[in-house]
């Protein structure tokens, strides 16, 4: 009886020490769940989810403070991917956060630009090039279409333009969406 208690106690102590050591030695930096959620978000940094960027939103989701349906740029695929990752049920986009729109790019009407740098300061990904009292321009390939530069512009010279579909970006339509075509002899 005594020996059994001693053996169990010894084992408990040994495992406790091992686990305690492992907890210190192999401590994970940051939160891996946040990273995985963040990697599914579209990184527009638009703030439509009411958080100041994609990473803060990912942190809020991980902490259970925000729902998974607050990302309009990601749309349904993002909600589905988040639901898969977190083993929840997908749900429709929260209308409060905005609506799903086709992807756009900011375009500055360059002759109208007064060079105030306000849009440069607003751009979360440094996709606007320019300096004080100099004309600004958008680096289209880096623009995420977040629209954050539109509101600060004092002369309303920034427009959001839909990206044209090219042969490289064209997608076959899903069959149900097209009228049954005559095909195949």
């Amino acid at each position, binding site marked *: 009886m005594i020996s059994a208690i001693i053996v169990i106690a010894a084992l408990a102590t040994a495992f406790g020490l091992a686990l305690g050591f492992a907890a210190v030695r192999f401590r994970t930096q940051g939160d891996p769940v946040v990273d995985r959620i963040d990697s599914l978000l*579209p990184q527009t940094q638009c703030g439509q989810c009411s958080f100041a960027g994609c990473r803060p939103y990912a942190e809020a989701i991980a902490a259970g403070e925000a729902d998974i349906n607050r990302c309009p740029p990601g749309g349904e695929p993002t909600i589905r991917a988040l639901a898969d990752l977190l083993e929840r049920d997908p749900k429709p986009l929260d209308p409060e956060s905005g609506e799903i729109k086709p992807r756009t790019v900011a375009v500055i009407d360059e002759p109208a630009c007064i060079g105030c740098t306000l849009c440069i300061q607003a751009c979360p990904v440094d996709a606007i090039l320019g*300096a004080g009292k100099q004309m600004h321009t958008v680096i289209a390939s880096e623009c995420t279409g977040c629209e954050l530069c539109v509101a600060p512009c004092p002369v309303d010279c920034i427009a959001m333009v839909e990206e044209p579909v090219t042969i490289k*970006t064209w997608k076959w339509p899903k069959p149900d969406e097209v009228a049954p075509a005559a095909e195949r002899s």
Partner: protein
Amino acid sequence: MSQPQLWRFHGGLKLDPRTAGPAGEPIGLVPVPKRLVLPLSQHVGQPAEPVVSPGERVLKGQPIARPGGYIGAKVHASSSGTVVEIADHAVPHPSGLAAPCIVIETDGLDEAWSGYEPVPEFASLSAADLRARVRAAGVVGLGGAAFPTAVKLGAGSGLKLLILNGAECEPYICCDELLLRERPESVLTGAQVLLQALEIDRCCIAVEDDKPRAREALENAIAAMGESRIEVVAVPAIYPEGGERQLIKVLTGEEVPARGVPPDIGYLCQNVGTAAAVARAVLHGEPLISRIVTVTGGGVVRPRNLEVRLGTPMADLVQACGGYTEGADHLLMGGAMMGFPLAEDSLPVIKATNCVVVASREEIRPRQPAMPCIRCGECAEICPAQLLPQQLYWHARAGELDQLDDFHLFDCIECGCCDVVCPSQLPLTQYFRYAKTELWARDRDRIRSDLARERFEARQERLEAEQAARKRRLEEKTRAAEKTRGDEAARKALIDDALERVQARRARDEDAEGNDDAGSGR
């Protein structure tokens, strides 16, 4: 002819060949059109970049666009004339969208450019030199996929066998058969050049067993040339044998691994038309400016094969075939099984145009309404890529695209066999095409979002560093002010210093008026 052992690939369909009409006619010629429209992207890979400008006169065979990257191909003027514009025009593509093209107004002189040196004695050239010549001539795979040939030639070392694909991919197409019948020497010379470029000494030309005249012509030519490295093999005509994976399986019994390429298992596959183009490029210094196109279907008066300059509008091809019949209804590029409909006949012939079908109303069977999948499994039986089409269909329909990769969606060759056998008339191939383009789009989005994250984090870091620096400066100033507390003279010196700095800056600003940078004000 010795017939080696052959294997069979999984599934496939026995389709009636419909080439009786065009195969009976010799290869015809299409006159030089008034306008040539040459798309910059006629091949797999990056679009070419123009090297001419509007107003410039160009000669036949002169390069007008250079490759846009390693996987790319040059574009050459198909006749002499003047470049009139470089602009977006509709191109033959399932999307029907416009893409950048070079438009040449021809002058009818057909004056040739002679910038590429002809080398009839190509035996002295090295493999790298041959590849460079093939690349310079803008040769791409003429079987329909249009992959740059020089890139393919550079892909493998330690190859066992060069396979020349003379198996037509579709029941309507016979451009390869006609080429083999009329110009077997050019294909054989091309094979010799390719063997030298690959530094191997075995080549096998696969021709379907229902094309005895093509085989006969080839064998006669081989005998006349005394070439022992090249053999002709008759393969059973089962669709889609023209697919390189299927053909390799039939000839060797080996399978190309999923996501792999034939050189991984020691084989290289080229279309016979490509071989002929390679021969022309090296021996005669002629770039790829024309190709053989099968024009067929019940909608043309006299279906036949034509040698066509790239950039010629398809209407000219129909004209050369006697024009449309009354029942002409539908224009397809690339055959009845894998082809896609074209909106108009003004679209140009490009390097990938192997066939133009003008179908009559009777030939086009309207698609029956799709019924629910009954899980009969016919599609899996027939699939030449050994996939599970119904499984792919369920996932694609439900939008569960991530799972599709596990079922090897990207090994689907879109041959359409499953569509044909499906008793519920499901548009399976279209689901797979949709899913593929959708997944590619997601890959592109992922790349963009990774870039955005990187830039966002870099900006965040920069802002934090700036803020920290500002805070440090403020602290230093406060400390300096603390130090001089009670000492009137030192305080005055500090204030004078500051005033001087302000004045100096004002003077500088006046000098460089209008060039004030907002950044320096902070």
